[in-house]
């Protein structure tokens, strides 16, 4: 029996060793990556200057046309991430501050995403390769239920989020295969879809009264003298539970309601996402109202 236990121990040890080596290798590759996604680009960047930084989910990513800001002389990047929540937006801003970004304005898309404080696995997982290299990221994930496993078990994080930071992503990062996430200064234009779903039901959705990550973003901006602009962005006409936006306004009076700036279905690719044409109308209005240009 002793021999068997020793045999198991040897295999276990080899497995741990392999896991440590792979963990190191994966992390090293992610640390070199700059052209895959917005997260690596920020994590692996140095100080930058922006007049406007846009944060939020896909409803930021697809709605704020960065070039239009640039045309008005405002250096801008759209850091909105499809599928992201405020959890990730807040972390992104923290990392920018840590890297000494000089930012004059932050525009935060704050509407549907106010309804939760959870990590969006698809996006949040992209920060995890850097968890040992950044105290900010480590602290941000500290309250996650499996933080200890993610932090202390070698390679566990890459197994758990294999679909996002697994071998496929490592391979593409290693060969520096570019994605389109940073094209158009981070803005991702949508086209009109024939079968786009022009209905939505948000009747059961409620904004959290004091969304932790929204408050975090607000406080970071205040502390760093960044002008904080929070806006609700448009949705199509056929939404059940449109009073959600009134509830947001009631809970967060400082958030500007731009939900009804664009209404017609022809400007929407799906109910929650405008086409490029819709995004341009919306962005023009934002630039005019907040930057007087």
């Amino acid at each position, binding site marked *: *029996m002793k*021999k*068997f236990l020793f*045999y*198991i121990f040897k*295999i276990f040890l*080899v*497995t741990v060793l*392999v*896991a440590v080596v*792979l963990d190191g290798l994966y992390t090293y590759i992610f640390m070199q990556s700059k052209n895959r996604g917005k997260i690596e680009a920020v994590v692996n960047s140095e100080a930058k200057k922006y007049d406007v930084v846009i944060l939020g989910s896909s409803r930021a990513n697809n709605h704020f046309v960065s070039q239009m800001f640039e045309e008005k002389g405002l250096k801008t990047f759209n850091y909105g991430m499809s599928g992201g929540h405020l959890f990730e937006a807040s972390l992104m801003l923290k990392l920018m501050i840590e890297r000494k970004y000089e930012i004059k304005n932050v525009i935060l898309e704050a509407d549907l995403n106010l309804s939760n404080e959870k990590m969006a696995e698809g996006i949040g997982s992209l920060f995890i390769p850097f968890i040992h290299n950044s105290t900010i990221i480590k602290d941000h994930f500290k309250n996650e239920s499996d933080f200890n496993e993610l932090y202390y078990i070698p*390679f566990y994080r890459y*197994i*758990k989020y*294999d679909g996002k930071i697994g*071998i*496929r992503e490592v*391979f593409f990062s290693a060969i520096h295969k570019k994605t389109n996430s940073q094209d158009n200064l981070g803005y991702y234009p949508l086209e009109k879809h024939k079968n786009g779903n022009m209905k939505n039901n948000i009747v059961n959705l409620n904004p959290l009264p004091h969304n932790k990550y929204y408050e975090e973003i607000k406080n970071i901006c205040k502390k760093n003298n960044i002008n904080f602009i929070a806006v609700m962005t448009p949705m199509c006409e056929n939404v059940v539970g449109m009073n959600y936006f009134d509830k947001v306004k009631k809970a967060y009076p400082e958030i500007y309601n731009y939900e009804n700036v664009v209404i017609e279905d022809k400007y929407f690719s799906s109910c929650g996402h405008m086409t490029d044409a819709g995004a341009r109308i919306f962005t023009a209005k934002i630039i005019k109202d907040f930057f007087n240009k």
Partner: protein
Amino acid sequence: MFFNSTAFAIFLPIVFFLYWFVFNKSKSTQNALLIVASYYFYSCWDWRFLFLLVFSTFLDYFTGIQIEKSDSDKKRKFWFWLSILVNLGFLGIFKYYNFFASSFAEMFNSFGFKVSPFLLNVILPVGISFYTFHGLSYVIDIYYKRIKAEYNFIDYSLFVSYFPLLVAGPIERATHLLPQVKIKREFNLEKAKEGFLQIIWGLFKKVVIADNCAVYANNIFDHYTSMDSVSLIMGTVYFAFQIYGDFSGYSDIALGVSKLFGIDLLKNFNYPYFSRDIAEFWRRWHISLSSWFRDYVYIPLGGSKGSKTIQVRNVFIIFLLSGFWHGANWTYIAWGAINAFYFLPLLLIKTNRNNIEEKAISFNFSSLKMICNILFTFGITCVAWIFFRSENIHMAFEYIKRITFFSFDLDGLKEQISYIIIIILPYLILLEWNNRKKECPLFDRYSGIKTITTLIFILLFGQFDIQSKFIYFQF
């Protein structure tokens, strides 16, 4: 509790420790512990179905003794048929009732009679097909006086509910398993090492081969109407490896786990995709089920003896039953029928036992012929898998039709090619081919290197999503 879950990774060492260090005084304590562990293991799925397992155990234990004790043929027959009918009755109600009810209703409706069937809203108890067949084989063997009835209830319970084989086999025989549970197991280093390696190999087949192939197979089968012919062909190949990795991976883990407790289970797979004809394939695929049907259905019906008509009838019965065993769906029956059609010519021209011996490959015509035979057998097996995987018969025929009306879309095809699979499949095939005379490719020569490489593959390419269940759990 899945074999590839964290819960099992905790459960197994605990049971192992208790088995060899605490309950190792006698075979009774060892067996009692394994029964408790098995019932806990089963109740993790759904504790409500535990009563079925316990009832089935009681029934076969009791009827087995009654058959042996009976002094008249009439009584023996009574207890025998009671056991058979109750066992098959449970299986019929839980697994087949809705199928028959809706099939009859459809038939009546097609004749113009409006019939709306009464359907049961029940889920299929996990492993019912497996433990029912355990019990059936035991009772049949007693009835035909091949074995003696087991009077020790603990020992018999363990034979039925032993957790490594409880939910997806292999389907054990009393003649093989009962003698092992009737003696105290002593720790055997070599056997335990083999078991551990077999678990690693099974895990590799499940989380690396099956689960990676599943992504592509599911995508192709789910969107088959928009796929070109080459993608559809690849879909069948992916599924062939998915089901092989899934089921044989499970069996390997089951065999490996059991070896850790000093108990050998029946070998369930013997590198089936290296078969040179379909008869050989069926001697290598799901061996415990094939041999069960052979011993308890095919041979009693006359087997390959008797007239050609009888032989054809027997072949069809065994293959159709085998298909139907997998599930209440016409697709499984069609799958069985196709395999019967594949097998019949070999039986009729008496070449079904041509390929018994293993042969090595060398640079000669005979080896080329052997490779062609292997590829041909794999090809026709893939065609049958289309029926197995399809949701209904119509889909299967439509799938095949789309393959035969040849179309090619390079962009679509690129989407179906995975570089991970290009790495892992050759590894599986090479390792299995070079070690095909061994029970597990990780045994013996270069065991250390093969094990470490396999572990690296598991870490690199494994899919550890708990949602990816084993396919055979549904049977």
